[in-house]
């Protein structure tokens, strides 16, 4: 029975999407259909944890029972190993929470039925990518996903930026799809199959010839576009900022993950190029550039969501970096960060959505002091901000720690000091991330409340519940890394490094052994995990200390505290004896010392993000050319 679960969890989303078209005019029917679809999809994924993650089963499924004939895969396969399931879980979780959030959030827009159709199409496309075992199917789903995402970006057509963002996104995104399709075609020309498992086997037998090197570069870049790695990141910023927030959650937390998934599949599994130190260096370089460039861009933004968008790519840079390290702890860190990124970035986008819902703007300069009107949203924002900045005990800390350790261990292992700088860049990026969230906190939630926002109300409960769930998950994944590693991360890492089971499950027992010979450079990587830490332990400690201190202090100050009820000069903000005027410090006013020293760099970067779509295409093509040249030289 369980072998039907993956296809059902994809199809139930598509079914829901089309049903919404039929019945979606009525709010109750729409809500019921969408909830049923996302819940079923998530439940089916969760039901697979036991067999796939824990028992190590690999589900192979041939559509229409077209099993391979004499060693040739002729059908379209669905295959779910731990890695696929890992991403499947991630996707369905984010889709579910964001979907629940949307019910209320989207009521401000017209035609919510169309929104949910596209929303479920996007979700189904992503699920299709991560669960599919067929290269061309991945491409088709990639296109479904891209269309849905572009359309959703343009959904708020009252937003003046939406159409522009959608157009740029479509142009550059279709560039990426082009690369993927061309790579797929070349791979097909070489292997005469589209099945991932068989391609992997055949490529090991045939070796990597120049055509395949070319195909690798194309596929890698194509999935890189979907992950918005650096030269492609401006469109991501545009799209995230213009899309409705619940869609931004999907674009940043889910859409980009398909790119990461594709890169893992292509470079670890199909071409096995990650065994080469040159490819590792390349991916780490791309990751480092992504995380640093995007975080400095984020510091300079004046729009809440655009800032978050740049951070999103910055975190993807972390994931790519740690995947490029190609050690077990590196991959574990990367995958862990993928989960965390989905959770905390989802949470942050949802809080941004809440702010937009309540105030109608996300411009940092126009906001301020919202913590008094929306205390829960502010608290949720702080959870998200601490998570993304890696403040213990939240989840970002755990994965970042693993990434630092992986990078520095790599440095010791290879004896190259370059990887030490990877650690340094990662830490500095983390601090800059913190800085920009301090900026958001100061500009949006603290400081003085502008007069026009006096009547702002807290967001409705149905929007807060998904946010609280996400915040709870941020904390849980941060304090229970042991459980996470045991049941979720380690199986996925093992699946990434040891893919013989995947090939055998798909192509029949013995296929991998016959084709892979015995040289699988990756499978020999060590399974050493940073086991010597236990954040749960010191979270408890932290709580004890906090409680103790608070109780002690509360006892000390009992009998006072009601003083604020009395209107009194002493409760005014201190202004040096002058009359209190509205003077919010926020937005572009912050971090002058940093900006001053980096002014040339920031100017160059600001000009580079020119907003002209031709430029973006040019960079994309140049990037592709560079990657092709790099691959031809070093692969």
């Amino acid at each position, binding site marked *: 029975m369980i072998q039907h679960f993956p296809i059902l969890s994809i199809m139930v989303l598509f079914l829901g999407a089309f049903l919404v078209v039929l019945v979606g005019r009525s709010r109750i029917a729409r809500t019921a259909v969408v909830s049923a679809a996302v819940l079923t999809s998530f439940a089916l994924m969760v039901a697979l944890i036991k067999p796939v993650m824990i028992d190590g089963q690999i589900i192979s499924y041939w559509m229409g029972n077209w099993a391979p004939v004499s060693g040739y895969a002729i059908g379209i396969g669905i295959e779910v190993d731990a890695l696929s399931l890992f991403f499947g879980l991630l996707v369905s979780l984010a889709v579910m929470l964001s979907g629940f959030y949307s019910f209320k959030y989207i009521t401000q827009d017209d035609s919510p039925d169309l929104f949910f159709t596209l929303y479920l199409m996007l979700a189904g496309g992503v699920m299709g990518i991560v669960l599919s075992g067929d290269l*061309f199917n991945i491409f088709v789903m990639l296109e479904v996903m891209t269309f849905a995402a572009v359309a959703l970006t343009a959904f708020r057509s009252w937003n003046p930026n939406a159409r522009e963002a959608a157009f740029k996104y479509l142009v550059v995104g279709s560039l990426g799809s082009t690369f993927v*399709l061309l790579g797929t075609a070349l791979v097909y020309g070489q292997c005469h199959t589209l099945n991932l498992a068989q391609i992997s086997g055949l490529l090991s037998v045939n070796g990597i010839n120049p055509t395949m090197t070319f195909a690798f570069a194309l596929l890698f870049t194509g999935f890189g576009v979907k992950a918005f790695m650096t030269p492609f990141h401006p469109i991501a910023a545009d799209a995230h900022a213009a899309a409705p927030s619940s869609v931004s959650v999907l674009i940043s937390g889910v859409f980009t993950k398909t790119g990461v998934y594709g890169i893992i599949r292509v470079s670890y599994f199909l071409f096995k190029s990650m065994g080469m130190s040159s490819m590792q260096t390349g991916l780490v370089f791309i990751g480092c550039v992504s995380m640093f460039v995007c975080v400095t861009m984020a510091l300079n933004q004046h729009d809440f969501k655009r800032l978050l968008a740049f951070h999103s790519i910055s975190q993807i840079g972390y994931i790519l970096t740690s995947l490029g390290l190609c050690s077990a702890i590196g991959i574990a860190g990367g995958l862990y960060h993928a989960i965390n990124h989905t959770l905390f970035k989802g949470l942050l986008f949802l809080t941004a959505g809440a702010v937009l819902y309540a105030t109608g703007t996300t411009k940092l300069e126009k906001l301020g002091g919202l913590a008094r009107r929306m205390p829960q949203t502010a608290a949720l924002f702080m959870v998200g901000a601490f998570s993304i900045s890696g403040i213990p005990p939240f989840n970002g800390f755990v994965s970042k720690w693993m990434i630092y350790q992986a990078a520095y261990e790599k440095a010791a292992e290879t004896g190259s000091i370059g990887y030490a700088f990877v650690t340094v860049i990662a830490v500095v990026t983390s601090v800059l991330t913190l800085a920009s969230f301090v900026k958001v906190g100061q500009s949006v939630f603290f400081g003085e409340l502008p007069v026009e926002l006096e009547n702002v109300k807290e967001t409705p409960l149905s929007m807060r519940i998904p946010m609280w769930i996400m915040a709870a998950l941020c904390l849980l994944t941060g304090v229970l890394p042991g459980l996470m590693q045991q049941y979720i991360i380690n199986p996925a890492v093992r699946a990434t490094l040891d893919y013989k089971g995947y090939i055998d499950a798909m192509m029949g027992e013995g296929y991998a052994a016959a084709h892979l010979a015995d040289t699988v450079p990756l499978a020999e990587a060590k399974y050493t995990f940073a086991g010597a830490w236990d954040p749960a332990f010191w979270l408890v400690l932290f709580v004890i200390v906090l409680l103790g201190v608070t109780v002690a202090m509360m006892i000390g100050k009992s009998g006072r505290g009601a003083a604020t009820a009395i209107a009194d000069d002493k409760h005014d903000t201190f202004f040096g004896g002058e009359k209190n005027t509205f003077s919010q410090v926020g937005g572009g006013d912050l971090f002058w010392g940093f900006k001053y020293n980096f002014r040339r760099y920031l100017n160059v970067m600001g000009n580079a993000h020119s907003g002209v779509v031709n430029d973006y295409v040019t960079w994309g093509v140049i990037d592709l050319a560079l990657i092709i040249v790099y691959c031809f030289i070093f692969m």
Partner: protein
Amino acid sequence: MMLVNYIGAVLLLATGFYVMMTKENIIKIVIGMGIIDYGLNLIIVSIGFNEGGTAPIFTMSELKPGMYFVDPVPQALTLTSIVIGACVTAMALTLCIKLYEEYGTLNSSHIRRLRG
């Protein structure tokens, strides 16, 4: 014979990329995307071609020994790719219309409210 196809396809791709990189009219950019699609389709179809093969449709009575046919999979891929290309174009043109309504121009160097 296939070489001509491949050269043509690469030329189409190169033209498409050139158009997308240099032409400022966004309609032309969409055309560039279309040209790239054609190049891709040409490559895919060419990959599946077998010299002297028949169409991959036959019934048992028509089957003779020594007969072979061109690879049907790339043709299916091409069909899918054409459909997707058509959708991309339709959507891009829709957005072009909307952009023109908003900005009053089709010049991509003026459609840059989102930058920095």
